[in-house]
């Protein structure tokens, strides 16, 4: 304590020294200047950020207003072309509104319903548009839903207008809104009941083949797995299944590490270690309770020098699948990364490639070991299908769709939609300006369902 006092006195003495005095003043001045500079800088940034938020918000209000007007117009319009045009525009505006909504400093939980409303408006408009193009008129039920959606967009627009007024008058600022003022959004989000949305979902089920795009994962998660049979397994039984999956001679230990409580695929989670391998180099896997199928497996180990080419590992993967009870799997696309190849295999039934029944196998290119496995597509969709005779011949399809293009291959395939339904198609592989592409033509209606561009890279074949 005495020492400290001494030091302070010493400082005081030194401060009274003229030189030291000026030094102190300079330091204080510099620190003050720095402080002012930093303060101004952060105020500028704050302002810049507020401006961005305002822009995003004002734009969003504008888009919501457009949606309201366009939905109105689509109900008034008499010709299918006009209806189609307005609906397409509504879809576009809903996407823009959502992009802007995502930029606001308001948390997800508060905006979940507003955001959902916007994507549902967009997807509904898109679905109706596709239906319209296909030549089917809007049904009475759909018209009612359109009316309902319009009413909600009116409410939303009104609520947003009020908020906009508060913001422009300076009664609310974004900082406040980001912290605690989220009640405003909450209130008006709640006014849109989830009932409406589940109704819309139901309507979608009635014309599922009309949509390809549009995120409908809510709808998808309620689907039942078709590829699971058998009784519920105990942990021990599931372990046995897993041991066979890896090969009994390879596995050192299997530890039950947890459960997956998902509604669609309840599963056990395991940690697997291997003989002749260090303890910390382990694999993880989920095994379904029902039937004991491996949903996915990942074994993250360092892969050494590549010694195998892709054609070889495709065969290794196919043999692996065959030996694990996945018969008649055909390799389709692949990606090569980190000295591993991830190969997609699809089920083949009577020469028809069934793309929904998908299994991915990740194979190490140093020794051909299986280091990854993913079969959710297969588990969810696999079943023996009743494949009808195509209503169009190969020749008819070729002349209709590939007359001006170089045709490389043609075959039959079943492709998935985003609604858990499937379409039976001709798969035409062609070449245009040096780029390979795939066209899928409905084998029963002759409608062009999808076009994919194939991208050939040294890392693999991908589709866009």
């Amino acid at each position, binding site marked *: 304590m005495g020492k400290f006092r001494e030091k302070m006195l010493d400082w005081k003495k030194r401060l009274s020294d003229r030189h030291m005095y000026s030094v102190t003043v300079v330091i204080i001045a510099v620190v003050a200047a720095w402080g002012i500079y930093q303060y101004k800088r952060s105020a500028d940034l704050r302002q810049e950020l507020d401006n961005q938020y305002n822009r995003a918000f004002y734009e969003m209000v504008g888009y919501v207003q457009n949606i309201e007007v366009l939905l109105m117009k689509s109900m008034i319009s008499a010709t299918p072309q006009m209806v189609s045009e307005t609906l397409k525009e509504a879809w576009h505006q809903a996407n823009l509104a959502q992009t802007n909504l995502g930029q606001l400093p308001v948390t997800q939980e508060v905006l979940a319903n507003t955001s959902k409303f916007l994507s549902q408006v967009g997807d509904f408009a898109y679905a109706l548009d596709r239906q319209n193009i296909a030549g089917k008129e809007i049904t009475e039920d759909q018209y009612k839903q359109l009316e309902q959606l319009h009413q909600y967009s009116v409410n939303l627009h009104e609520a947003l207008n009020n908020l906009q007024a508060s913001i422009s008058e300076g009664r609310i600022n974004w900082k406040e809104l980001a912290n605690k003022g989220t009640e405003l959004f909450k209130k008006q989000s709640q006014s849109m009941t989830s009932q409406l949305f589940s109704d819309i979902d139901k309507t979608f089920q009635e014309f599922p083949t009309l949509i390809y795009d549009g995120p409908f994962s809510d709808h998808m998660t309620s689907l039942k797995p078709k590829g699971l049979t058998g009784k519920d397994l105990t942990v021990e039984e599931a372990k046995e299944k897993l041991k066979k999956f890896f090969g009994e001679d390879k596995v050192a230990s299997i530890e039950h590490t947890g459960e997956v409580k998902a509604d669609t695929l309840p599963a056990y989670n395991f940690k697997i270690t291997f003989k002749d391998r260090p303890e910390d180099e382990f694999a993880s896997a989920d095994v379904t309770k029902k039937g004991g199928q491996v949903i996915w497996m990942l074994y993250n180990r360092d892969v050494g020098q590549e010694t195998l080419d892709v054609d070889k590992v495709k065969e290794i993967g196919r043999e692996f699948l065959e030996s694990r009870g996945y018969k008649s799997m055909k390799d389709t696309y692949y990606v090569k*990364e980190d000295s591993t190849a991830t190969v997609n295999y699809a089920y083949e039934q009577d020469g028809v490639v069934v793309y929904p029944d998908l299994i991915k196998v990740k194979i190490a290119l140093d020794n051909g070991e299986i280091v990854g496995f993913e079969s959710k597509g297969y588990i969810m969709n696999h079943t023996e299908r009743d494949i009808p005779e195509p209503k169009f011949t190969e020749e008819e399809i070729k002349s209709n769709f590939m007359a001006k293009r170089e045709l490389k291959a043609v075959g039959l395939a079943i492709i998935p939609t985003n609604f858990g339904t499937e379409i039976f198609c001709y798969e035409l592989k062609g070449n245009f300006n040096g780029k390979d592409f795939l066209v899928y033509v409905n084998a029963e209606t002759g409608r062009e369902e999808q076009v994919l561009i194939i991208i050939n890279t040294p890392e693999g074949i991908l589709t866009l």
Partner: protein
Amino acid sequence: MKKQKIVLFISVISIIMCMLVPSIYHTISYAQAARASDEQLIARAINGEARGEPYEGQVAVGAVILNRVASADFPNTVAGVIYQPGAFTAVSDGQINVPIDPSSSVVKAARDAINGWDPTGGALYYWNPQTATSKWIWSRQVLKVIGKHYFGK
């Protein structure tokens, strides 16, 4: 006298450093964020959110990001989801801009997630029960526990 000069010198230097360092930091981080592709973005998010987690937990964080992209309740792009205000702490504190080693496990985890591996069973949220501050998050259905994280929807 000599001592005082040294003190003055050190003070001035340190003040200048204080003023310069933040601005240097800002320029670097913005330049890199602009170049990052989806894979990089996801890998960086994993790096910021689940660096110390088991590999499965790293893939799971990537899968949550992609599940969000597919969900109607979230933005429709990877960048939109990751940069959604308040969504990820790694974004709020700037860790998303930290460059990562291309051979690190987070890059592999990002690739596995992009290739379709989803260890979460379709989760849209995850949280650390020890540090989660939001009460709302507990209203979510827990699907799976991996490492320190709860995954739910």
